[in-house]
């Protein structure tokens, strides 16, 4: 792994985007361009993953699904506990932020894939299923944590002021919201695109796949560069908000991905027993933090939380950390694990 091989174009474009933002360049992407590239990339990953999956047996994917669920349900709880008991973050913000850290970022995943491609490292097809599955569970945990926090807060106020009216009211809403969010986690645009194109990728035959590959596969890595250029600008925009977020959460935004990564790498290597590339991708998934499906869900489910907190942390902190430093680190660790254990 020479120095030039880790100069992945996509990552360099991300850095260029952040740089543009920091020097206050007037460079700006049309907002629709962002949405278009995201749609394209999600379909591209889905098709590619779906095709890869046809070459594996369904049953062999079960451990991946289970790992995804464990990470998706477990990490937000860990995150919540850290924020509440070490950081003394207020419960509603803690719940909303926790949900983000249990979910995943397709952008980080794709950058990792670009990184592995750049150094010619193979990887399994399962992580793409994990990507699709892990978007949802954390949303539900976020809602449960918020509900729990609301009851605690109501009880506290009740202990002082009398009856827990708000808590009762919140309770009924809670159930409706849970149902709403469960439905949404299946109808969410990006999740649907990912699952839908995985399905399509796995049922179309070789000649048909060949006809659409120039669009969805050959030019994918280049299009990813433009996506990361834009993400760099989005990340850069949020740096100015670090001071509002506070020192604890800024540190948390770096430490939490490392905690997630530790869980992911151990699972990937010892339990799932994937190759170095596969372990890297599982680690990246566990370390990454959502900014597509979770923010709108939390805005709805936990309106008391401050959106600027979770967006700043996810886009301004954890995403850049993973893209610029995390991925090579996770890869090196996966390599070390593979050679030593």
């Amino acid at each position, binding site marked *: 792994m020479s120095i030039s091989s880790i100069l992945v174009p996509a990552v360099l474009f991300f850095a260029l985007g952040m740089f543009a933002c920091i020097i206050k360049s007037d460079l700006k992407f049309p*907002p629709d361009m*962002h*949405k278009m590239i995201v749609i394209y990339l999600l379909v591209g990953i889905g098709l590619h993953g779906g095709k890869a999956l046809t070459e594996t047996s369904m049953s062999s994917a079960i451990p991946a699904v289970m790992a995804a669920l464990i990470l998706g349900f477990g990490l937000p709880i860990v995150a919540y506990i850290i924020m509440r008991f070490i950081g003394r973050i207020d419960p509603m913000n803690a719940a909303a932020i926790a949900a983000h850290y249990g979910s995943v970022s397709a952008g980080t995943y794709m950058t990792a894939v670009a990184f592995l491609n750049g150094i010619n490292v193979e990887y399994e097809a399962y992580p793409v299923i994990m990507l699709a599955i892990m978007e949802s569970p954390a949303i539900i945990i976020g809602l449960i944590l918020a509900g729990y926090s609301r009851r605690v807060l109501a009880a506290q106020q009740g202990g002082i002021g009398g009856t827990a009216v708000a808590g009762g009211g919140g309770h009924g809403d809670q159930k409706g919201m849970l149902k709403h969010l469960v439905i949404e986690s299946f109808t969410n645009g990006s999740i649907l695109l990912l699952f839908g194109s995985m399905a399509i990728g796995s049922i179309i035959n070789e000649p048909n796949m060949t006809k659409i590959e120039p669009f969805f596969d050959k030019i994918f890595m280049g299009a990813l560069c433009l996506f990361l250029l834009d993400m760099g600008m*989005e990340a850069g925009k949020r740096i100015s908000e670090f001071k509002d977020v506070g020192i604890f959460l800024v540190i948390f935004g770096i430490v939490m991905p490392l905690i997630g990564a530790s869980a992911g790498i151990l699972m990937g290597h010892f339990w799932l027993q994937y190759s170095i590339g596969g372990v890297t991708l599982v680690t990246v998934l566990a370390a990454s933090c959502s*900014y*597509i499906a979770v*923010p*709108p869900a939390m*805005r709805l489910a936990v*309106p008391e939380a401050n*959106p600027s907190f979770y*967006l700043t942390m996810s*886009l301004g902190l954890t995403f850049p950390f993973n893209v610029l430093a995390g991925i090579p680190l996770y890869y090196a660790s996966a390599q070390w694990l593979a050679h030593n254990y």
Partner: protein
Amino acid sequence: MILERDAIVPLKRVEIIIDDEDFDEIQKICRSLDIRGYTYLREVGGFGSRGKRQSEEIFLHEKNILIIIACTEDQAEKLVKTISGRMKEIGGICLISDCDWVKGPTISY
């Protein structure tokens, strides 16, 4: 007002700002009250009791719609009565002011 009395019709100008996704509901109410014209502007941002709603934020796209309705005082009153209860739940604001409809185009109020 110097403008000649017979060239204008005094009306009410109702301005409603709500979540874009609640527009259908308001449209139905307008139809049921036989309101014969309205105008709407999408991609509207704002700040209110529920905090910021930023139409330009790509990762948390919350947008308002601004609806302008020129109608008779009568219609305005009915409209206001019908929606003020619902707006308690869905949020937003509703402002009313006086205006004059300039005669000329086909009447649609």
